């Protein structure tokens, strides 16, 4: 199969979906400029022009509402935020209106607004530009939250979002944008709520969404050097969450490490741990371990930033801990962002 980069997969899915459905339009700050949101909206602009790719004023709150009202008329808006941190300004619309629309108006129809938002990573983007808001959004029934970790998933989940009937938030980690992988040519949907086994293993289960699925796979490489077989699970969407794939893995390995790009407390890692404590407790042969960013805002300074983010090494170390193994990890692996210097 031919390969694409993560951003190219998004670009391609957007164009293909827009070809198939004239109701889809792309909108957001700067979607039509020469950078084209790191290339992801460039194809749509070239193919469909500004009739269907709309730059907008700076108005996150109203614009979320605007897309809801357009969706209520049958349009299929695809909103893009260059940083997901800006979406806090739109939480009222997403939580109080989009998520609740179908239910509180009597199940007559939904407003399937699709919002893509990029999680900043690298080059000291700092406290207000590198949060991962996935758990915050995923707490609310009525929304779906997808966290594609591969080019194929970036395409397939976007296709599902643009053809489904539910508001979806797709969070894309900036650090994944240059990742290359096999991507089907056709616009095939990947369903929400269906995780994937990134790498099969038998000793310990590592669950990681978005960038952490990638870093967990690199951790599994390190562990393999030491003869330890880690199974890496990428849930692909965190709402709905594929509990079964996680539980099945834990039932097999008896050990669970959850890696996450956001804080532990009340985050994604808490939910995964809770699901296992509820539904596979008897299989756990050791306490669960969470590997996440620590309880502070994202710092800018490079040494602090490096220490702040979970790395393949810190995930691998957590696995060794959980396995009560006294092997040391054999090698450090460069930070995913080591060579990154923009555009940010």
């Amino acid at each position, binding site marked *: 199969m031919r390969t694409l980069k993560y951003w190219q997969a998004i670009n391609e899915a957007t164009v293909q979906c827009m070809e198939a459905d004239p109701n889809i*339009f792309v909108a957001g700050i700067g979607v039509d400029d020469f950078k084209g949101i790191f290339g992801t909206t460039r194809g749509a602009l070239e193919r469909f022009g500004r*009739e269907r790719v709309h730059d*907008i*004023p700076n*108005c996150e*709150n*109203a*614009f*979320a*509402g*605007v*897309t*809801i*009202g*357009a*969706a*209520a*008329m*049958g*349009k299929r*808006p695809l909103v893009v935020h260059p940083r997901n941190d800006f979406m806090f300004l739109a939480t*009222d*619309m997403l939580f*109080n*209106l989009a998520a609740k*629309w*179908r*239910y*509180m*108006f*009597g*199940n*007559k*129809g*939904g407003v399937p607004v699709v919002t893509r938002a990029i999680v900043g990573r690298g080059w000291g983007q700092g406290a207000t530009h590198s949060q991962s808001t996935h758990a915050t959004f995923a707490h609310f*029934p*009525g929304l779906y939250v997808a966290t594609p970790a591969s080019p194929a998933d970036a395409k397939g989940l976007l296709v599902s979002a643009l053809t489904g*009937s*539910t508001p979806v938030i797709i969070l894309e980690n900036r650090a994944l944008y240059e990742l290359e992988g096999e991507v089907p040519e056709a616009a095939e949907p990947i369903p929400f709520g269906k995780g994937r086994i990134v790498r099969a293993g038998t000793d310990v289960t590592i669950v990681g969404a978005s960038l952490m699925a990638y870093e967990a796979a690199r951790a599994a490489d390190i562990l393999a050097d030491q003869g330890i077989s880690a199974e890496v699970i990428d849930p692909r969407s965190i709402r709905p969450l594929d509990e079964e794939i996680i539980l099945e893995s834990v039932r097999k390995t008896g050990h669970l490490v959850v890696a996450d790009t956001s804080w532990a407390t009340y985050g994604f890692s808490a939910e995964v741990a809770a699901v296992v404590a509820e539904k596979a407790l008897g299989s756990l042969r050791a306490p669960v371990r969470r590997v996440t960013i620590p309880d502070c805002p994202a710092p800018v300074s490079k040494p602090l930033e490096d220490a702040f983010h979970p790395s393949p090494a810190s995930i691998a170390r957590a696995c060794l801990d959980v396995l009560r193994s006294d092997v040391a990890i054999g090698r450090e692996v460069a930070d995913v962002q080591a060579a990154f210097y923009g555009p940010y």
Partner: protein
Amino acid sequence: MTTTERPHTAIADGALPPASAALELVRAMMRIRTVEETLADLYKEQEMRTPTHFSIGQEAVAVGVSGALRPTDVAYSGHRCHAHYLAKGGDLRGMVAELYGRETGCARGRGGSVHLNAPEVGFIAASAILGETMAAAAGSAWSFAMDRSPRIAVSYFGDGVVEEGIFHETLNFAVVKQVPLLLICENNLYSTHTPLEVRQPSGTTIWERVRSYQLPSVIVDGNDVFAVLAAAEEGAAWCREGKGPYFIECSTYRWREHVGPNWDYDAGYRTKAEVDSWIAKDPVKRAQAAVVAAGYCGDEQIITWSAELQQEIAEAVAYAKASPFPSVETLLDGTY
């Protein structure tokens, strides 16, 4: 684009529409008044378990605006939405059943008084968070513009929404994208119990400030249904011609307490004299008097309607009370 100015229009001006149209407006207002007064009385039975914001005293706005709309046009409202829902053609029984929390309610008992909707007649949604639906209405209007359709979207909101950021963002967006959005501000002078003077800059009015966004903005006597209709017709035509949004401030007044069925003469945030002065400007009575004076009908017509409407609401209440509650098995239905 120019901004136009419209003085308060009094019925004394004699600018009545033709008889059939005028009579329809009067009856529509009477219907809303009858419905709400009946529901306010029944509310005390404590069977409508949903916080309810009555529109009593403000009926002319919804009825006048709806007179200028087509069935394919859409409308959005906020927490005080009964009149807007009914005037746009929302089913009365569905509304009453909603307040009674029944499965036959327009939101199947899930939404309550503040989340009425009737998409089948273009009343798309009401929502209890200030200003939300203003943006949604702009989005619907934008979709019409994209489709080069002659449909328009109406947004009803109160003077309290004017302070929210969404008001500004929506106006700016609507003007920049030139969407067919008819903005109807029901200025009843209060946001909950806080008067306008301590919430917005003095020395100017809402409609005047709005003109700075470069769209036509006018003020009408919101207790004069014929004046509202005339303004709304002008605004709707403007929007339909693709000239962008249009803003109408309607001066009116809420008679009852902010939320709930009671009078609140003694709450202290407004004087009895003020309330009474607005009751003296009762939009329903004024319109009735006008059509009678114009010879469009006699007093007996008013009395007949009154009886019919009492009957209609009584039947709607009976229907609601006889309707089943949603079954607990369906608790999750409609989340996705």
